[in-house]
């Protein structure tokens, strides 16, 4: 099963993924063209501030079984078997928001879409960039991420490499050696921002 794996410790809140997502789902699929389209394409991945100025890129996990699919009264949500993606049929979505109520990650939002003329807003969650995947490309958000916070691939393979990394750090720690999981300068910056959050209004 291929998925977009998130390494939250690597997210630095640049929102590049949001921009790439909006471009990918616009009519023109072009940054400058997108700005002149109505309705304006919106990101389906969301980078928001947590505590201590840390951020998390939140997107559809394409669960299986998917709670949203299970509760959808019109069957607008369905699964693409080949990629495992949970997709929305805009023409049958009635905007009832049942899917959003049960979503474990609260990532469903409702917007107008350019691809079909409707008076109402529909579920515009992540479609796993199914068109790109079918063309042999990785999702737009992953391609845009320059810090490695988003990684596309087989979940078990990705986890195996993270697990190996964890094992190395743990055994190093047993030996009494320091094994930081982040570069020291980034660690220092995060510590400073955690302090700034104590004296400010944010994070």
């Amino acid at each position, binding site marked *: 099963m291929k998925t977009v794996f998130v390494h939250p410790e690597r997210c630095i809140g640049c929102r590049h993924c949001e921009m790439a997502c909006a471009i990918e789902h616009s009519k023109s699929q072009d940054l400058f063209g997108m700005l002149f389209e109505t309705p304006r394409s919106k990101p389906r991945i969301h980078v928001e501030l947590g505590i201590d100025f840390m951020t998390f890129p939140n997107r559809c996990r394409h669960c299986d079984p998917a709670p949203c699919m299970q509760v959808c009264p019109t069957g607008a949500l369905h699964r693409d078997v080949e990629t495992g993606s949970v997709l929305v049929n805009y023409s049958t979505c009635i905007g009832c928001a049942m899917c959003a109520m049960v979503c474990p990650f609260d990532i469903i939002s409702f917007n107008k879409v350019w691809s079909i003329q409707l008076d109402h807003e529909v579920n515009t969650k992540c479609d796993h960039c199914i068109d790109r995947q079918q063309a042999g490309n990785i999702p737009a958000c992953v391609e845009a*991420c320059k810090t490695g916070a988003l990684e596309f691939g087989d979940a078990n393979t990705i986890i195996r490499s993270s697990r190996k990394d964890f094992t190395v750090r743990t055994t190093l720690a047993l030996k009494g050696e320091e094994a930081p999981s982040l570069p020291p300068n980034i660690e220092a*910056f995060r510590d400073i921002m955690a302090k700034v959050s104590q*004296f400010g209004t944010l994070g």
Partner: protein
Amino acid sequence: MDKKIEIIVNARTTDEAAKVVLEKAIEEGIETVWDRLEAQQPQCGFGQLGMCCNRCAMGPCRISPFDDAGPTRGVCGADVDLIAARNLLDDLLVGAASHSDHGREVVEVFLETAEGKSQGYKILDETKLNAIADEYGIDTKGKSKEAVAKEVALAIFEEFGTVKNSIQFAESRPPEKTKETWKKAGIVPRSVDREIVEAAHRVHMGVDSDYVNILLHALRTSLSDGWGGSMMATDISDVLFGTPKPVSSYVNLGVLKPDMVNIVLHGHNPVLSEMVVKASREKDLVDYAKKMGAKGINLVGMCCTGNEVLMRQGVPIAGNMLNQELAIATGAVEVMLIDYQCIFPSITKTAGCYHTKVVSTSEKAKFPGAIHKEFHPGNAFDTAKEIVKLAVENFPNRNPDRVKIPNNPMKLMAGFSVEAITSALGGTLQPLIDVIASGKIRGAAGIVGCNNPKIKQDYNHIVLTKELIKRNILVLETGCAAIASGKAGLLVPEAAELAGDGLKEVAQSLGIPPVLHMGSCVDCSRILVIAAKLAKALNVGIADLPIAGAAPEWYSQKAISIGAYFVASGVYTVLGLPPKIFGSPNVVQLLTEGVEGVVGGKFAVEPDPVRQAELMAAHIEKKRKALGI
């Protein structure tokens, strides 16, 4: 106060007067800087870490903070050290240019005054004029003050350009040892403009590609600001408008008056505001205000223009950077006069929610939605009168139902120029040296810089200041930091009670506050001058003195230049917010460690104000030990 609003207000500011007005602003749906900060979250990590370069059209480029993923060089080939250093120099040169362009404008007015072409200006401090003339080697004997002034003005102008390749104040004022370190490092400033222009040149693609070389030039550029542009602004303002002497006045939003025409003087350059002060005292305008139903005309300052007119004219001051929108939200401001720097571009939008008129006055700082009354020295007084008249005529448009002015303006004492401090000590700095040597006062700290909405307004300024005076460290302040202390009641002689026994005794015997308001942000140059005088008296360099600096709530490029000229002059300087360099461990290392071996000063980054005080006190004790005191 509504519980929910109370929580928001308390998280945003510690200024009690501001809280009252912020509550009103929130209730009335007025957008403020804090709302905009929230809307900007999360802010881009590449930018915060200094790993983004948006300089040329091959980019924008960004470097990954993690070496196992993402690009390590920009399209041009710049690595993260170069990108972070170039960004920093770019920010710094903007700050240095802001101070220096301000200085140039003051010197322009000075020259036109010397030539009899300005309106309303006089040379007020002839003693200081003659002292500067002496420094420049200008013979004053038998010459009128105007003739001397003209020669001084032209001599200073020459140093903006590149003909001479030296700046007089940077020659005659610093101690020999400090100048030696500059010479050795190759960072003696050659002119005011040259360093700034060269800095802009160096950040172009394919020019300076060595981060160390770029950072050295950053230090040189900052020196051309601190000992050049800023110092010229300070000194010539003193000559024109008078060297500040201790003066008592009031501070916080409570200085606005419910029954008077309120004019807020906001920005940084006092040249026009000095004339507005004069105009507001004209009898015909005061009578006109009475005819319009007001009791009179009430001028108040804001930010550093406010500091300038407070220091010299005793004009009350409404607040620092984060108070500007709130002043308008009181509903009681007829005119906010703005010159330049630190004025929110949205200020006219804020004013649009009330009857307030924003009057812009500088050709280089126009604000859509403002009424533009351009400042020219030749008709400055007429322009000032026009602006006051506009305010008076706007008074009947005020809606009394929407006015809310906090009570209890705080008393403060300002005006501690180096001359004023020296005179308070009986004509020489020796008594200060004596109390430092005896240990009654452990040393001195300069707390400067801005407000930043990322820090609860004034919180870090005040906690740090209190922690330092408790440790018997004399605190010298300028800019928003000084206004913060004023609002918190630290700029009155009674605040000596909060100081340690030694500082308390000294402050009480002199009748001065333990925290001295030394002026606006260009007046950080006054702190350099007093440090230089102390070092010269002890025959050491500035880096040897038991002193330290801090910018606990800084936001502006000017603060980067100020921080850098303190460091380059040998001062250990603590920043309360991280500069955009943490993507480059090498740049961080150089500025927080390596640079000390070159110029004697270095930076530290520490957001916790108690910890800041501990770091500064430890540095001061280290220097005392080295001096054997």
